[in-house]
């Protein structure tokens, strides 16, 4: 699912994608910047965040994970979050990629990147999108442990 909103709000483009298969966040950044981003020479700052699956959580070894989501609502909420960020900070473009389905340790779960003229906006908007995503985007993690499975109960705050 690829959701691109093209300059609907003043200034910024945002691409939001849900991915059922693994992705390389740095190859994505490179490709997006080269092929999609229309601002060569205009952006001075890019802040990106990559969330990666760890092989442990709350003192237990985690073998793999299933990421449930709510098709339609997940994309809509990510879009809302990006729109809010656009009203709060001046940036040129943003990219959000989030995995769904089966994930293995060391695989990327989420990439958020923001391109802007000045670094403050890039850092602030990237972090805002990440934090809001963590608290509002409808995703649910189920971990497979050495013995049995468990749903992750709650995300912790990131500030």
């Amino acid at each position, binding site marked *: 699912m690829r959701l691109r909103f093209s300059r609907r709000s003043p200034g910024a483009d945002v691409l939001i994608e849900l991915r059922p298969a693994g992705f390389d966040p740095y190859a994505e950044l490179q490709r997006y910047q080269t092929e999609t981003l229309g601002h060569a020479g205009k952006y001075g700052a890019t802040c990106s965040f990559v969330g990666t699956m760890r092989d442990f959580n709350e003192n237990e070894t985690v073998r793999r994970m299933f990421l449930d989501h709510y098709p339609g609502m997940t994309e809509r909420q990510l879009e809302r979050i990006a729109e809010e960020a656009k009203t709060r900070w001046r940036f040129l473009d943003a990219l959000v990629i989030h995995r769904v389905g089966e994930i293995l340790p060391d695989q990327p779960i989420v990439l958020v990147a923001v391109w802007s003229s000045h670094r403050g906006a890039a850092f602030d908007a990237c972090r805002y999108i990440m934090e809001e995503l963590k608290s509002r985007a*409808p*995703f649910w993690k189920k971990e497979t442990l050495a013995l049995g499975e468990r749903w992750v109960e709650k995300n912790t705050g990131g500030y």
Partner: protein
Amino acid sequence: MSIRVRYFGSLREKMGRVDDILAAEDIDTVSDVWKAVSEGEYLPDRILCAVNMDYADPDAPVKDGDEVAFFPPVTGG
């Protein structure tokens, strides 16, 4: 009237089903929907609600054709 009720995450497993179709006539709010699908229980504080894919309060109104969803706190990212 007809309301589709969907469940996600651990709540789906607790409910033992992915959705319900409600046809009852005496449903005005999200809370009423929950009571109808859970045999009269109150909506637990920690369960989040959405109407037509937007977050909604328990006392938000629902109408014929709406999609209502219930789910635990989100854990993406």
